[in-house]
């Protein structure tokens, strides 16, 4: 009550103050404007466009004129056994990545950290960082060339063991392990950077003191090196748990073929097939929105968890 009573008198004043502030920083607004427009059009307009998840969107009627249908498409998500399968694939793949691809760079960083010859370390680093910069098309292309029917692996198996050609890329059981191996090959080296940085910050006196106390190499790794990266590991792991619904769309999409569709179709690729290939835009958007909302909740929860562990969190 009181507020509304005084506001007419205060408001003009306030507007003038704001206008003055804005005018003072007019150049800053000029700098920000192009980028801001980009974010509004290509990041926030699609958010607004997500309302088609609540409509029966048709290309001919457009965003505005398509009829509202409430939660119809969300109900379709939950009584569709296909989606359950896709969700299971998504989670299983993520947990395999966390179990195998996540620890790999920690191990590699520990190994690199033990190398005393600086030039040897540098050469190895140059080589293991490189795969990160190759495209997924190249990586999956190389894997395809090696593993297909007339590829190198089958040739060698035939030559050495007389085994007939095995269609590795069409075997459902191999799909997820192959994906994990590809991620390990491509990203392990690159991911060591953050752990190596944490290790570079360790006070060398700690090692000297440990040596003076008679600690061997492995004891030093266990009591000094590992604790030094503990907090980095914890925060990265928690954040990784926050994005279990993301599997790396590009890679999965490239590896999919009709033979492995049942085990390989994950949320992102499912949205693509439903939306782009079958033009079921509203349903695909509903699935995407469901994924984003769950993802948001998971990331926020993960961040809270990180702070609980006494870490900084991401925001």
């Amino acid at each position, binding site marked *: 009550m009181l507020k509304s009573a005084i506001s007419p008198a205060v408001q003009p004043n306030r507007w003038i103050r704001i206008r003055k502030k804005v005018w003072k920083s007019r150049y800053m607004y000029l700098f920000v404007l192009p980028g801001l427009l980009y974010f509004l059009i290509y990041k926030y307009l699609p958010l607004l466009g997500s309302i088609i998840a609540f409509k029966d969107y048709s290309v001919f009627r457009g965003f505005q004129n398509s009829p509202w249908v409430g939660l119809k498409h969300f109900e379709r998500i939950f009584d569709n056994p296909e989606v359950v399968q896709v969700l299971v694939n998504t989670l299983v793949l993520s947990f395999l990545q966390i179990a195998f691809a996540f620890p790999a760079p920690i191990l590699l960083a520990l190994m690199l950290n033990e190398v005393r010859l600086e030039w040897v370390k540098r050469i190895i680093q140059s080589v293991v960082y490189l795969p990160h910069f190759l495209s997924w098309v190249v990586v999956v292309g190389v894997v395809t060339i090696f593993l297909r029917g007339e590829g190198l692996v089958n040739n060698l198996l035939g030559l050495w063991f007389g085994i007939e050609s095995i269609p590795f890329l069409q075997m459902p059981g191999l799909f997820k392990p192959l994906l994990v191996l590809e991620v390990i090959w491509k990203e392990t080296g690159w991911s060591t950077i953050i752990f190596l940085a944490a290790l570079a910050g360790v006070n060398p006196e700690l090692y000297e003191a440990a040596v003076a106390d008679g600690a061997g190499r492995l004891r030093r790794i266990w009591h000094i090196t590992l604790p030094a990266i503990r907090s980095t590991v914890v925060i990265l792991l928690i954040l990784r748990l926050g994005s279990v619904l993301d599997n790396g769309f590009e890679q999965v999409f490239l590896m999919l073929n009709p033979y492995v569709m049942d085990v390989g179709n994950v949320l992102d690729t499912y949205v693509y097939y439903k939306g782009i290939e079958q033009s079921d835009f509203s349903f695909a958007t509903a699935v995407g929105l469901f994924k984003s909302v769950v*993802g948001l909740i998971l990331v926020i929860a993960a961040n809270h968890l990180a702070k609980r562990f006494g870490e900084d969190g991401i925001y």
Partner: protein
Amino acid sequence: MLYRSASDRLLDTVNIVLLVWIAGMMFFPFLYIFSVSFSSMRDYLEHDFLLWPKTWVTDAYQYILGNNRFVRSVFVSLFIAAAGTLLNLLFTTTMAYGLSRPFFGQRTMIFMVLFTFLFSPGIIPTYLIVKETGLIDSLWSLIIPVLISPWNMIVMRQFFRNIPEELTEAATMDGANPITVFTRVILPLSKPALATFGLFYAVAHWNSYFSGLLYINNPSNWPIQVLLRQIVIVNDNTALLEQQGFVEAPPAETIQMAAILLATVPILVVYPFLQKHFAKGVMLGSVKG
């Protein structure tokens, strides 16, 4: 120097051997593909395991470099990488600089950018917006929807914040307006950051295939990665048909391997420059502010 016991030395040796083996695993696929792509059909068929070409043959390269579709795709990607990176840097630096100084509404805008990390609208609404803005089948669809990487922008902003305010003030005293300050003082000081993010952006453009697949329907405007997927992974030889001057095409295998290597060469060329900068660039990102 610390005292090294026998077990220490054993540990070191095992460690180095393992690391060299790992590096070998990273390197081996390319050596093999390099060797096969330069080998003759006979060598390829007779030797199951070629780690170095027996006789050097450039048929596969001649074939693929003489192919209009392939060469055109390379140029499409080079154009995207060049024009895209230039625009990326322009938009990223201006926004980052604008957000590096406090002003009314700045915090809201930063939150808007950070929010995009947490919540993404998904591919379908984005696709529809790209369509509504008339970019489908235009090369701009590969540039404009990815004008700013929010991550790069935030790191760049951090970089600008670390430039001492006195420099800006001194230039302003001399009568420079903020735009002149930006172009004459800030940007020259930011060359390492510009180089780092320029290279990151360029690599991302060169490697991107999904937006090409999504937004470019006309195969003659495909970026190289989309064509590469078609040739190698989909194993679609028609993608490379129209070819003059070859009585008999080299085997599909060697062509595919040559295509992979050619699509990787630009990365290998910029890698040494990248490597000089990226550790710093990545670390900048972990500095909070």
